[in-house]
């Protein structure tokens, strides 16, 4: 908590940050619809910038009540966005069993992003970095194993080869408890390897099928690695069971 009151205007009750962000929102929206949609970046900076800076600890302009209100609002926004996207996809894609348009694919990425970020935040918020990372790696490995077994039940050779992929996941899930920072570094390097080995940077050049890998593989690996390297809760007390 701040040692002094958050700076707010006496008459409007708005902070300087909120006022500045409001200017960006209006400016961005006006420029986007009158000049070029690229100015949505300015709009986005106004809407999401202050919150993002607060989450990473750069901005500390709110008191605890304001933070709680913001977080409750954020959770409701998450639920509303998730439900809206689910319903939209179900209605737009009814009658098919795939995402047959670029728009449907893009919208589904929003759904995956919401779920992945929520899941990671919930795990890191409830557990410490070690236990959360261990759980995520074990889940990765288990899902992969299940997928391989179901796919290659009749091909023992192929099943064995593809099942070997789980070894690093289970291995890192074990090492994270003994050498958390070294495991964190390994996860970051592994994440970067995946990013470049699978050309995931092409996601920004209209290669839509790279996005699922980025969101479900690269993002969790980097989040776990950076959390372990950050070490905020690496050496903590026994976490809640």
């Amino acid at each position, binding site marked *: *908590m*701040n*040692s*002094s*009151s*958050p700076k*707010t205007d006496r008459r409007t*009750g708005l902070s300087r940050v909120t006022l500045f962000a409001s200017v960006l929102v209006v400016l961005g929206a006006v420029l986007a619809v009158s000049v070029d949609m690229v100015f949505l970046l300015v709009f986005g900076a106004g809407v999401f910038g202050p919150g993002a800076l607060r989450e990473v600890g750069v901005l500390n302009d709110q*008191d*605890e*009540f*304001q933070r*709680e209100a913001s977080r409750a609002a954020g959770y409701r926004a998450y639920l509303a966005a998730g439900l809206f996207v689910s319903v939209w996809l179900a209605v737009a894609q009814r009658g098919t069993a795939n995402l047959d348009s670029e728009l449907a694919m893009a919208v589904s990425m929003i759904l995956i992003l919401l779920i992945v970020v929520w899941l990671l935040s919930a795990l890191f918020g409830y557990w410490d970095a070690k236990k959360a990372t261990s759980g995520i790696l074990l889940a990765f490995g288990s899902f992969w194993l299940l997928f391989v077994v179901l796919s290659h039940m009749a091909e023992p050779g192929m099943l064995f080869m593809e099942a070997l992929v789980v070894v690093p996941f289970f291995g890192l899930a074990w090492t994270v408890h003994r050498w958390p920072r070294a495991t964190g570094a390994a996860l970051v390097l592994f994440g970067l390897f995946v990013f470049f080995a699978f050309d995931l940077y092409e996601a920004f050049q209209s290669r839509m099928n790279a996005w699922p890998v980025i969101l479900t593989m690269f993002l969790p690996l980097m989040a776990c690695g950076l959390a372990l390297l950050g070490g905020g809760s690496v050496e903590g007390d026994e976490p809640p069971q």
Partner: protein
Amino acid sequence: MGLTGQVLNHLRRYRLQADGMTQGGLADRVGVTRQTIHSIEKGKYKPTVELALRLARELGVAVEDLFELDDQEESS
């Protein structure tokens, strides 16, 4: 497990006893907004332990004087 009991608070009474301190004045002293003090007094917001301790220290009372569990709510 969820704690759903009510917490009664006497912040307004002790604030006014402290030379009629305003909500804004108390807010400035403990480092929050006036709206936060207002919401605590209305029972809309339960402060953190840190803020409760700051409020008690600023008003010169014990935390237990400012906040108490609603026993009637608990027993029902």
